[in-house]
Structures are given as structure tokens and as C-alpha cells.
């Protein structure tokens, strides 16, 4: 009885499993070296005492009225950066969408083939959108901080450029994936492009466009906090300063405010999307 059991391993696939584990460890080793993965550094006395002091400060968040007032102002600035950036992005994205959108092509009607010039212009604008959104917003912010100096202007411009690329692409996709029959009928009967968009394509897609915009606004708020860390104003910049001074109590309050802000934006965008969707 025992001999039959030992001759067959309880796990029939054990060879493959062991080989895969060894291979994974072999792959893991160079990664650990490259990332300087040294967890024992965390337990080093010096870093432990610094972290301990920092974290001990966390327990009682800073709450002097002066600090809270400053914080409220910075929080509003964060929201304002996101809103202003998104508004500027829309100013760029909406015309781009109108150009890219293939549903509004008149030369396509009937033959199904677009005029080569129209196609070239569309492709050109599409590439511009790709270029705008493929540079991360933080890199844009870093560049603008170099050009204009510290402050919210860099953040607004960074959000405007990145989100212009994103919104332009997604708006065009949403419009193109909506039912084309209404706008086609309008165009074929001689209506203008703008009328075809407003009365044909937009009613189909308005809810989806709106909810995507609100979602992006929420993302922009998160992005504007992060961009503050490179000096683009708002809550992030203050957080960076407090962090450099190891002021744990201030960082703790700011993190709480930040989490609350994100939750609030989430809630607001959810209600707005439900109302409009």
C-alpha cells in the first residue's frame, strides 16, 4: 500500500511547478538587484528613528486654525487647477473632435471612400492628439515649471495639453461608435456638418460624452495634486514642502484632506453622471 503511494507523487504536476518556481526565482534575482531591494534598510536604526518620529507626528494631525485656513485655500486651488485645465482642454478637444470624426465626412457618403485630403487632415490631427497625450502630465508640468516658474499656471497648462489629447480621442471614438443613421440621413439630405452633429450624432452620444468628461475631471483633481510635487501649485506643493521638513502632523492632515477630496469628487461625479446619464 505504502509503496504504491510513494511511487506516485501526490501532485502529478510537481515537476512543472518546481521548474516554474526555479525559473521565477532566477528571473527575480536580477530584478531585486536592479531595484536595490534591501528591506533591511527599513530596519536600520537611523531610518527607523526618523520614520518613527515622522509617524508619531501623524497621530495628532495639525489643526491650528491658521494651517487649516491655508489648507482650505490650497485645496480650492487644486480643484481650480483641475477645472481650469479641463476647460482649456475642452476648448482644444472639441474642434479636434469635429475634425477627426468620420461620421461627419461628406465625401464618404455614397462611395464609402473619403477624399484623400480629408483623410490626410484627419490623420494629422489624430497624430497630434497621440503626441499630446503620450507625454505624461507630470512631464508636461515639469517642463512648464521650467518655462514659467513655480505656480498653478504650469499645472493648468499641463492638464490642458494632456487631457486635450485624451478627450479628443475618446470623444471621437464615442461619437463614431454611436448610431450613424441619423447623422447620415441628415448629411445625405444636404444639411451642414454642424447641424448633422448637433441634431444627429450628439443626442445619441451626449450622456456618454458627459459622463466621460466628469470622470476625467475627477482624474484631473488627482493629477493636479500629484503635479504639485514638481512645483505646479495646490495641495501637492504644500505636501511636498511639509514632507521635506519632516512635519508629520501637517502631512497627516493633508493626506486626510486629500483622501476626503478624492472621495468627494468621486461622489459628486457619480451623482452628476447618474443625473445626466
Amino acid at each position, binding site marked *: 500500500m505504502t509503496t504504491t503511494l510513494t511511487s506516485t507523487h501526490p501532485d502529478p504536476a510537481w515537476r512543472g511547478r518546481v521548474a516554474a518556481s526555479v525559473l521565477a526565482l532566477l528571473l527575480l534575482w536580477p530584478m531585486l538587484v536592479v531595484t536595490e531591494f534591501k528591506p533591511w534598510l527599513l530596519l536600520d536604526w537611523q531610518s527607523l528613528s526618523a520614520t518613527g518620529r515622522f509617524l508619531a507626528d501623524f497621530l495628532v494631525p495639525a489643526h491650528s486654525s491658521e494651517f487649516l485656513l491655508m489648507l482650505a485655500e490650497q485645496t480650492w*486651488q487644486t*480643484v481650480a487647477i483641475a477645472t481650469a485645465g479641463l476647460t482649456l482642454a475642452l476648448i482644444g478637444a472639441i474642434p479636434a473632435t469635429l475634425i477627426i470624426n468620420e461620421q461627419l465626412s461628406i465625401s464618404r457618403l455614397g462611395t464609402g471612400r473619403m477624399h484623400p485630403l480629408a483623410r490626410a487632415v484627419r490623420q494629422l490631427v489624430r497624430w497630434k492628439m497621440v503626441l499630446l497625450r503620450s507625454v*505624461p502630465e507630470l512631464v508636461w508640468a515639469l517642463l512648464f515649471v521650467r*518655462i514659467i516658474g513655480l505656480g498653478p*499656471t504650469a499645472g493648468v497648462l499641463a492638464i490642458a495639453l494632456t487631457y486635450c489629447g485624451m478627450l479628443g480621442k475618446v470623444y471621437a471614438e464615442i461619437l463614431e461608435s454611436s448610431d450613424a443613421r441619423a447623422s447620415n440621413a441628415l448629411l445625405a439630405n444636404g444639411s451642414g456638418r454642424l447641424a448633422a452633429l448637433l441634431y444627429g450624432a450628439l443626442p445619441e452620444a451626449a450622456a456618454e460624452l458627459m459622463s466621460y468628461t466628469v470622470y476625467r475631471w475627477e482624474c484631473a483633481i488627482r493629477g493636479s495634486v500629484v503635479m504639485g510635487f514638481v512645483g505646479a501649485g495646490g495641495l501637492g506643493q504644500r505636501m511636498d514642502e511639509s*514632507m521635506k521638513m*519632516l512635519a508629520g502632523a501637517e502631512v497627516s492632515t493633508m493626506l486626510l484632506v486629500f483622501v476626503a477630496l478624492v472621495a468627494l469628487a468621486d461622489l459628486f461625479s457619480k451623482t452628476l453622471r447618474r443625473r*445626466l446619464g
Partner: protein
Amino acid sequence: MKTRLPPPPGRDWTVISLMLLVLLLIVASFASLPLKWREFFTLDAVRSTLELLAGFAPPELATPFLIKTGWAAVETMAMSALGTLLAVAAALLFSLPASGRMGRTARTAMRAMLNVLRSIPELVWAAILLIAAGLGPFGGTLALAAHTAGVLGRLFADALENAAPLPEQSLRTNGASASAAFFYATLPQTLPQMLSYTLYRWENNIRAAAILGVVGAGGLGQMLKYHLSLFQMQSAATVILAMLLLVAMVDGVSFALRRALTR
């Protein structure tokens, strides 16, 4: 001939007031921000901007610098992979209480913790963890792990909650231990979903790792910040190009994989 038009739709006042609120928000934002448009659009500013942009023009292409950039890219990839791996381990652990296997209070508490982990962005985590871990890629790896653990923990917990309960119950009623029942009945059901979430987050983390270094957490971002702060624009241009290339590569691979898998 009089055409019969359908009656116009009624006005929805909630939507109108919401729109007014949004308009107010936009106006207030522009009014309250100290935006420096004037400085930005003066002839002087335009000239200095153009000068700065011209400084990028030939990206630094000397071989030693390219090798250095290549290593930074490898470091970025390693950070993202290791961060995701740590996050998966943590998320598997967190998802057990968060899926309600250890009582309601544990579920609520763990979900709240995951929410906090998730709502703090990677970059903020990196800035916090640098205090404990020091400058370099290690802090960045931990930061990616912290944020991703929050995201994956919640997704894993949802997957576990949505798994069919009968297989595990039948193993338990037939005398299997709790851990054996979990490993042989529930985990195999959810594993494919968990794997696809993990791959998706890894893709995100590569993008995040590329810029995480801006606060000093290693990889391409740290190089970018370093060269930009020294006004070495040509080196910075190379690093930005490397970032774009890395992200484009990841996008291409994930697009191809998705297409291959869904076909």
C-alpha cells in the same frame, strides 16, 4: 400646409441648475487662480520659451549616455514588475478578510484600509516612503506596491465574493480542511480573473514607474528631473524620448496580446 411637430421636451430644472453650478465652478476657478498669462504671452516670454525648446533639439545620442538611459529603463521595468509582484502577494492576503471570510467587522475594516491605500497616488506614496527607504528605486518599488495593493486587494476581494460558493462548500462538507477547500475550489475559479487584473495593473505600473522618479524614486523619472534641474536639455530630451518609447512599447505589446487572446 402646416407640419405637425412633436411637442418640445419639458425643461429639466435639475440639469439646468447643475449646468449653472458647473459654469460657476469654471468661472470661479479662472478668477481665483493666479495665472500668469500675461507673462506667458509677452514677446520676451515667447522668445525665452522658444530658446528653451530649441535647446532640446538634438537629443543627446552619445553611446555612454544611451547605455545609462537604457539601464534607467531597465530599472523602471524592474521596479514596476517587482512592485506589482509585492502588491499581488499583499492583495491576496488582504483579500481574504476583505471578502468577508473573517467576519463583517474585519471586512469593513479591511475595505476601509484598502480604500485609503488606493486613494493615495503612487507618487505621494513614493514621497512618503522616501523618508523610510531613502532615495533610489527601492522606495519607488514600495510605493507602487502600496498603491497597487489597494487596487488589487479590492478587485481580488470582489472576485472571491463573486466566485460560486458551492464547490468550496461541498469540499468542506466532505471533510476537507478550510485551506484545502479554498486552494482547490475557490482560488482556481478566480485565478484567471486575478491574473488579468494583475497584468492590467502591471501595464499601468510601468507607466507610473517611468515618472515616479521625479520625486527621487529611481528609474527614468529621476534622470529626467536631474537633467532638467541642471538645464541639460539635450539629455532630458533623450530621457523623454526613452519614456515615450517605453510607454509606446507597452501599449503595443498589450494591444497585440489582447487581440491575440480575444481572437
